[in-house]
């Protein structure tokens, strides 16, 4: 399988809104397979959003299971979520985020600590779950891509954005 090319800022296509997924058929599943492959073969590889590979549909993939982080206390493993909605949230958390689409910078971003999410699974069945900490941050980061937002949009102050000298490929 071949990796998708990941769009990087200032590519305008990262700022586009994605449309809801309605057809969960074969073509969609093939796309998801290749999106997952792209995520697995990228640094860290904890999350990816369809628009990052220039497919403007509301699908994100998250897998926090393999990542050691002090806020990663509980996670659901691999999740393929379409049309995700945050239906409840609580608390705040700040993590230093990096993004495959913004390779030159990292930033401290404030997110909800706990979220309750409703979404469609790979077969289009609606599921509901709640999560917290690290996994909740990754989901919020990926969901931002669906509305054309990057972590830089969420950085609170000039002291919270950092230039990276070398980006590990």
């Amino acid at each position, binding site marked *: 399988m071949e990796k998708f090319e990941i769009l990087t800022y200032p590519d305008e296509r990262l700022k586009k809104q994605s449309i809801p997924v309605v057809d969960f058929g074969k073509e969609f599943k093939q796309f998801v397979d290749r999106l997952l492959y792209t995520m697995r073969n990228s640094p860290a590889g904890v*999350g990816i959003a369809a628009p990052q590979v220039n497919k403007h549909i509301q699908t994100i993939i998250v897998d926090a299971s393999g990542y050691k982080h002090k806020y990663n206390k509980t996670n659901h493993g691999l999740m393929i979520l379409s049309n995700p909605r945050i239906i409840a949230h609580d608390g705040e958390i700040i993590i*230093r985020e990096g993004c495959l689409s913004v390779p030159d910078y990292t930033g401290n971003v404030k997110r909800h600590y706990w979220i309750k999410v409703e979404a469609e699974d790979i077969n289009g069945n609606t599921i509901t779950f709640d999560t917290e900490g*690290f996994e909740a941050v990754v989901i919020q980061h990926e969901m931002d891509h669906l509305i054309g937002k990057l972590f830089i949009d969420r950085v609170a102050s000039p002291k919270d954005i950092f230039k990276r000298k070398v980006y590990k490929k």
Partner: protein
Amino acid sequence: MKHFVITAVGEDRPGIVAGLTEVLYKKGFNIEDSAMTRLNNEFAVMLIVATEEENITEQELKESFRNVAQEKNLFINVRQIPEDVFNQEHKSGQIYSLVVYGADKPGIVYSVAKLLADRGINITDLRTEKTPEIYVLIAQLEFPEGLSEEDIQPEIERLKGELNIDINLEKVETVEM
């Protein structure tokens, strides 16, 4: 390419940044890096600028700020950066964030900075704030390769006791998403 570091300080008022950057823009300079902030009622500007004009000197660049310096009452300094210094690559280990706070007393910044310097830890950013009751220091640190948090924890504990302050050192982890 030529690079300069420019510093400017003066009583805060609107138009300082616009005045300085207008000069740079008209001369075709690029701002490569900058920090500009208000400390109490003073506004301080630090700029690293680049130009393709190979003939310009420190003195000429400083001269071009004469009007804005007079108008805004700014103290301006210009220094050329040797190209080999500008292009030097930084080799650093892990990045940490440091927060120190406690009742104000003389020597907090010095004691903390001394502890870090003795271990070869580089401060890349530091800010302090003070209210009548509490002094706060926030810094970003680059540890030399091979040094970890545990190595300096005993010294931090000692300083906490000596100055009766709180010190929190946290590893900065960036997560690629």
